[in-house]
């Protein structure tokens, strides 16, 4: 999607020096990082907010300089000196003209700020949805994210894949936001502002990331004990990568090779234990919807809503006791013996 609106205020950018420093600072301090800074926008709504914020900063900064400067001047000029105690200063009770002046000027500032704000509210919130948009239904759960692509027939979790959107080929992602339990909030700062996921109250937002890569964020509305580890990863793919990802996700779950006895045994364990009550693996007896869909688990870089890397060791620890990574996670410790655990991990490792 083309930015429908551009703000002719980029020249103020030099005045916002502290912000520029902020943008550079974390990377200087700690090397390679994924900082979800709102000062590094990568999508139209985030850009529009960023530009608007610079304009507001310039106005509020000017007010600050004037009033704080006045206060500093008064502190220096009018502090009591020796001998002052003998006489009281001249008593001034007020002045209608002065009061009027410092009422009218703020009113004018409010008018300007409001009109600018309203323009951006409508530009972002009421943007029309183009034909080429990708639809995603985002469902918040305690404490993970479910992503459904209704038109593509894909169900996945915690890692959202969207195609890059360029002026030549705009492909914004329109997200429908639902909740399965309590309030959550979808926030990936570089891609846009946050919108809450509220049960019984469907919401919507859109993003159109303009460069590929990984963007991180997390739940921004307190949702219970593991709110802190309800992390979000958004992968912005090239059109080819996205098409390939869609194709892979649309496949039914892989069946373990006959030569892989451990995985076959793992599938049996998985299907005969409580796992199936909460998880789905398409093509098997597992059809639960309470937990993340595991059909293509190995296509994801993390488990536990981003709390741990997707490695066999982490999977093993997670199955033995999810509290290792997320104390309070709703998945119970599965009470499998070591052999069974290893078999299940071997099975999960085949779910590409």
């Amino acid at each position, binding site marked *: 999607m083309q930015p429908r609106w551009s703000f002719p205020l980029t020249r103020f950018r030099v005045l916002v020096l502290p*912000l520029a420093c902020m943008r550079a600072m*974390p990377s200087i*301090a700690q090397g*390679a*990082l*994924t*900082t*979800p*800074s*709102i*000062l590094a926008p990568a999508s139209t709504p985030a850009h*529009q907010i960023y530009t*608007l*914020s610079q304009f507001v900063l310039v106005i*509020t900064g000017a007010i*600050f300089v004037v*009033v704080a400067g*006045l*206060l500093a001047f*008064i*502190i220096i000029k*009018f*502090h009591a*000196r020796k001998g002052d105690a003998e006489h*009281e*200063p001249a008593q*001034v*009770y*007020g002045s209608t003209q*002065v*009061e009027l002046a410092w009422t009218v000027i*703020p009113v004018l500032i409010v008018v300007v*700020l*409001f009109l600018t*704000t*309203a323009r*951006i*509210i409508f530009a*972002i919130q009421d943007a029309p949805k183009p034909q080429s948009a990708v639809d995603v239904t985002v469902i918040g759960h*305690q404490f993970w994210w479910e992503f459904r692509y209704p038109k593509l027939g894909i169900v996945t979790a915690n890692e959202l894949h969207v195609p890059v959107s360029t002026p030549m080929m705009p492909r914004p992602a329109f997200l429908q936001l639902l909740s399965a*339990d*309590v*309030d959550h909030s979808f*926030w990936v*700062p570089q891609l846009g*502002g*946050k*919108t*809450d996921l*509220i*049960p019984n*109250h469907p919401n919507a937002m859109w993003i159109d990331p303009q460069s590929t890569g990984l963007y*991180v964020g*997390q739940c*921004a*509305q*307190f949702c219970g*004990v593991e*709110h*802190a580890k309800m992390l979000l990863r958004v992968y912005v793919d090239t059109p080819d990568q996205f098409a390939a990802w869609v194709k892979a996700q649309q496949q039914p779950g892989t069946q373990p090779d006959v030569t892989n006895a451990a995985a076959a045994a793992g599938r049996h364990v998985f299907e005969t234990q409580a796992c199936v009550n909460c998880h789905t693996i398409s093509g098997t007896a597992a059809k639960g919807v309470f937990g993340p869909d595991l059909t293509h688990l190995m296509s994801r870089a993390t488990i536990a809503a981003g709390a741990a890397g997707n490695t066999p060791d982490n999977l093993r620890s997670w199955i033995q006791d999810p509290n290792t990574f997320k104390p309070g996670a709703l998945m119970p410790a599965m009470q499998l013996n070591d052999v069974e655990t290893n078999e299940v991990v071997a099975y999960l490792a085949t779910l590409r």
Partner: protein
Amino acid sequence: MADQTFPIPGTPDASLSRGAALLEQLHSWVVTVDHKKLGILYIVYAIVFLLVAGVEALAIRIQLAIPHNHFLSPELYNEFFTMHGTTMVFLVGMTFIFGFGNYLVPLMIGARDMAFPRLNAFSFWMTAFGGLLLYFSFVGGFGLYGMGAAPDVSWWAYAPLTAKAFSPGHNTDYWALSLIVTGFGTLGAAINTLATAFSMRCRGMTLLRMPLFVWLMVVTSGLTLIVITPLTAAQVMLIIDRYLGGHFFDTQAGGSATVWMHFFWIFGHPEVYVLILPAFGIASEVIPVFSRKAIFGYPAMVAASVGIAFVSLSVWAHHMFTIGMTSVGNAFFALSTMMVGIPTGIKIFNWVATMWGGKIRFATPMLFCTAFVFQFLLAGLTGIMLAVAPWNWQLHNSYFVIAHFHYTLTGSFVFCIFAGIYYWYPKITGRMLSEKLGKWHFWLFFLGFHITFDTMHFLGIIGMPRSIYTYEPDRGWNTLNMIVSAGGFLQGIAVLIFAWNLFDSYFNGSIAGNDPWDAWTLEWSTPSPPPDYNFAEDPVVRSRRPLWDLKHPNDPDWKYEP
């Protein structure tokens, strides 16, 4: 001779043993209906909970100093941040303002007590027991099952997290019930303050001659009456949902999560003004006295206060820009919120104009008030930023918001409360607080405040959300969090110095006399501490500064006031 009694030497007091005398003394505090004693009880109670909630804040900051820390479990962290917020607002903020109001309103308007002394005592004890009920949750949450459980649903307690399905146990019940109890106490105190200010003023004290502190207590009390009501109603609905099968907020049965938000914030936003308006009142008393000038634009200050109260009732949904309101709704609340900036701006300009041309004495109360003006300016400006709805979509629920409201509640409210305590402690106890310790307190607190809360703004801008018990090490938040925590401890040290100063000066402070600051309102005409009856003779006033008139008979205020 049978009907005659013989005097026996000695008084009843002398016959009491030391223990019995102490008991008598304690008893007098429990049964008192004297507005001064109740005011002191309120303030001491607030200081105790200030320390408690401060310790909770420091525990939170230890936990967040480094990523993936294990100092607090997630469960305990959630309890601590919920209790920190709830305590600071309901048990520290509200009790400080009604403590100051109780002590000062009758003295400032030349009355001998509040309008309803028994209601006054009732209000205090409701508030006090509400607080105890809240803290009993730490030991009593699960009753017979052992360990207690404090509320852990955050202080805004959004539905449906508070429903039985998601909050089993009694954590949420303690939260809801204790706020109902303290809420009734607060309503009583508000009614009492209004009745006192409207019907107990001494002769000559017209409404437009009331000290600004009294005016602001009036405005705050009116606002309290309006906004505590929906809070209490919401708590009752929540309890009905939890125990009587109601579905007000039960989204799984067609209830509405957003209705809770509206109920909570129609209380929650004006609540900020309920707290900050009396703080404005304190600043409006302290700044003129230490600048040696009358307050600039008294009528404008009164009008601005009333204006803030009215506008504050129409801004609540700016806490809800991210819940998916319509674009028109978002625009409306952006505008109404920005409009708050106009009357608050007027107040800042009037304080600055009061200092202009004065001979400013920077004693400790004035240091705190000057810092308040500076910090409140910044709090207002970040408030404007948050009112810009699209920017709010980014900043909402981030550490930027935490920084903003701590600028108002710590940088403005608490700074004014400290100013008020340094200013009126001599009146209340008869002794001065140590200026030396006061200066240490001020500078350490000021420094710690800015290290902590200035830094928090930047954490929010680089994407750190609130209410998280830990964070990922690769987010670039590590250094800033360490700085924030360090500043927190500096503030902790400053508050300890303050507490020691309060204690030590009570016994060793220099004697204050009636009017140590050369001030102008009626309370300074009484002895320190004032006698039970406050004024031996009913005072009569002719202007806003009766003691100025007394001290400057050739140049009294009533010649100039309109």
